[in-house]
């Protein structure tokens, strides 16, 4: 038996590292990977809470109707959105590289192509 808080702490650490990478990194592809890391951290807390509500249904406040498995379904939707985001984002990166010949975000400071 592992406390739920351990999973949430791991999720918080991964999310913080993702935020840090987003701020620190100058390469547009690595920034994009940091965003994926943040999405994964959130997925972990979804799955941890799904297991938690499954094993402790009594802890729910009365009148709250939660299907524990909906955490898994939410993770599924997050992955779908992440896949769509990766496809569009990487296409944008390719378009940016084609016009500017750089991946450094400091040199990409105009919206117009």
């Amino acid at each position: 038996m592992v406390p739920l808080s351990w999973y949430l702490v791991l999720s918080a650490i991964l999310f913080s590292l993702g935020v840090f990478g987003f701020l620190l990194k100058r390469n547009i592809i690595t920034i994009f990977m940091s965003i994926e890391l943040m999405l994964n951290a959130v997925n972990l807390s979804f799955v941890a809470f799904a297991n938690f509500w499954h094993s402790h249904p009594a802890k729910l406040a009365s009148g709250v109707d939660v299907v524990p498995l909906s955490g898994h379904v939410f993770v599924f939707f997050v992955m779908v959105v992440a896949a769509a985001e990766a496809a569009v984002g990487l296409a944008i990166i390719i378009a940016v590289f084609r016009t500017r010949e750089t991946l450094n975000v400091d040199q990409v400071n105009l919206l117009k192509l």
Partner: protein
Amino acid sequence: MVHQVLFIVFGLICVAGAVNLLVQRHPINSALSLVVVMASLALIYLLLGAEFVAAIQVIVYAGAIMVLFVFVIMLLNAGSEERTRGSRIALFVGVPGVAALAGIVAWLLVHSGGQLGGVTISSSNFGETHNVARLLFRDFLLPFEVTSVLILIAIMGAVVLGRREN
């Protein structure tokens, strides 16, 4: 006991991969560390009884999305990133900021952990595909159908953006 040991091992691999993602200069090394993070997260999902989520984590995330990343890195022949003034400011402000953020959240969670309780390796087949599918195709049918439209829009967007203008 086994659960705790496995959680600590895979959690440490996960955090080490995430730190390595930030430390590495070359994007291909960062991408490979992200694969390590995702694979160990899949194992952590298995510990939580989420078999279906673990499978699609490996197939979709570590497989499809990361292949797309590696493909773009190779295609653009991305080199090591250089440090700039902005990244130095981010380093000096970001490290304490992130340490404070993670520390406060972790402290709060551990502090209130007694009220939360624990999770167990579920012996019942809780997160197997059968149960997820029943929920997904019944209660969440409309959102599921809407995501197919989203995917279609994303495909069209990627094709339009990736097209060479002439």
